[in-house]
Every structure is written in structure tokens, then in C-alpha cells.
């Protein structure tokens, strides 16, 4: 058995390590490019002042500073914040009855972005075509008003 490495002559002898290095660099840059790709969810924001919503199509929630979700005017929780599954069921059932449902979320100014993003992603994923936001203290209804 001949274990001696075969050596070839030529102009570019010994370039194989640089080939490996170039390959690793390509992998690195592809991975880096993939990691920087923005991942998130798309939301269609209602145009300010132009959106009019039918009163019966409106489903309003309030999100407090601690992230508790309440349905405006009292809900199944009866003063207690709704759980995520309760909120999801409410929106799902409302969407079945009212395909043009408008979900309106009034948020305490100090509420962290995390529960707002979770709510928005959930509503968008359920198919709520209209999702509006308001700061607590501002007008709690769409700027275009109710019809």
C-alpha cells in the first residue's frame, strides 16, 4: 500500500486550503444574510381620518399597562382580564358573524410593545381585515367615526 501523498506540479500548487476557506466564507455570508432578513408580520393600517366603520362591525378592546386585555363595555371575564384564548375565541366568533369586523384596540400609553404586538399578530392571523390602535385618553374610536 502506498501511503505517500501524491504531489502534483503546476502553476497553482497548494491552493486547496484557500478553496476551503472561500467555501466557508460563502457559507458565512449566506448565513449572515439570512439572519438579517426581516421577519415579522404584515399589518394593513387604517388610513387616518378616512375610515368609517359600521357600529355593529366594531369590536373594541382595552389593553392595560400590565398587558391585561379587557373587552370594552364588559366581557366574559366580568372585570377580569381576558386570557389569550378567550380573546381569540371572541374575535373568531365575531368574524364568523361579521366578515367586515373592525377590531379596535385602545392601549395604555405605558403598556410595553410586547402584548400589543401579540394581540395584533393574533388578530391579523385570524383574518381581521381592519385593526386600529388608539392611545388611552385619545378618541377611543376610529378617526373616521362610526356609522
Amino acid at each position, binding site marked *: 500500500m502506498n501511503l505517500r501523498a501524491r504531489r502534483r506540479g503546476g502553476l497553482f500548487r497548494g491552493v486547496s486550503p484557500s478553496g476551503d476557506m472561500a467555501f466557508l466564507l460563502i457559507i458565512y455570508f449566506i448565513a449572515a444574510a439570512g439572519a438579517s432578513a426581516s421577519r415579522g408580520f404584515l399589518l394593513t393600517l387604517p388610513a387616518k381620518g378616512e375610515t368609517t366603520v359600521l357600529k355593529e362591525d366594531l369590536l373594541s378592546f382595552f389593553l392595560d399597562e400590565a398587558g391585561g386585555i379587557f373587552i370594552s363595555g364588559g366581557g366574559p371575564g366580568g372585570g377580569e382580564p381576558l386570557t389569550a384564548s378567550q380573546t381569540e375565541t371572541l374575535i373568531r366568533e365575531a368574524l364568523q358573524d361579521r366578515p367586515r369586523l373592525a377590531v379596535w384596540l385602545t392601549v395604555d400609553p405605558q403598556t410595553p410593545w410586547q402584548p400589543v404586538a401579540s394581540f*395584533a399578530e393574533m388578530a391579523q392571523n385570524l383574518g381581521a381585515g381592519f385593526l386600529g390602535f388608539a392611545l388611552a385618553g385619545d378618541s377611543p374610536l376610529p378617526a373616521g367615526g362610526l356609522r
Partner: protein
Amino acid sequence: MISSRKTSGSRGRRNRPGRGAFFIPADSLSDVAFLLLIFVLLISLAGNPQKIKIDYPETPRAYDTRRDKNCEIAITEGGEIYLNGLPGNLAQAKALIEDLSDRAPDTGIHVLADRRTPFQNVHGVLELLQGAAYPAVSFAVREEGQK
């Protein structure tokens, strides 16, 4: 069994390129590639010296929302605004959004808000986007369980 085979004419000497045989010693190309990588990384860091620290909110699902043309509006936990990686404010954000709305409405706008930032910081940007009637906005999130 290891055999030692002598090529005719070598007379036991190591197989070196003979005098006059031209070759390029390319073994050190990997070192050059490594130095180039360091160089590129340093240059990219120098171009973006202020690292924006954003802890994305977590949601059960996240989608690739990247488009051909993209614009990023980052909002840190403390409420600082960065427009495409550069420090800015709401007035500059408004000018940028209006410019994009007129000139390149197919640009994807990505809101990168820290999960802990108070909603009032994000609401200012949302109002700008609604005012410009930007059709769809992406909110950056991280899929649950992913780092």
C-alpha cells in the same frame, strides 16, 4: 505493507520542483482570505458605529416580510428612533415616510420596536404611517423559542 517507491531519476531526494519550474506558492492564500474577512468586518462596523439594541417581541408565528426595497424604523426601549440605522426623530421619520409614499410606494416599511418600549413610542410612528396612508407595514417579531 508500506512500500517505498523511488521514482526514476529522484535518487531518494524529496520531490521538489526542479530549478526553473515556475509555480506560485499559494499555501498562504487562506491567511490572506482570513485577513480580508477581518478587514471587511471592521469596515462594516465602521460604517455603522452605533449598534442598535432591539429585543424583538415574541409571537407564535413570524414571516419573511422582506421586499426588494426596504426601510427600517427602529424604536429602542428608551424611545430613541433610528431611520435605516441612523439616529433620527419623529419629524425626520415623517419626512422619510412621506417621501417614500410619493416616490417609492412599493418600499417595505419595517417597524423594529423593542418589546419593552412603551406603546406611546410606537404609536407616534403608527400615526405617521396612517397619516401617509401607507398600505402595509411590517412589524418585526421573533418566533417564540427562537433566539
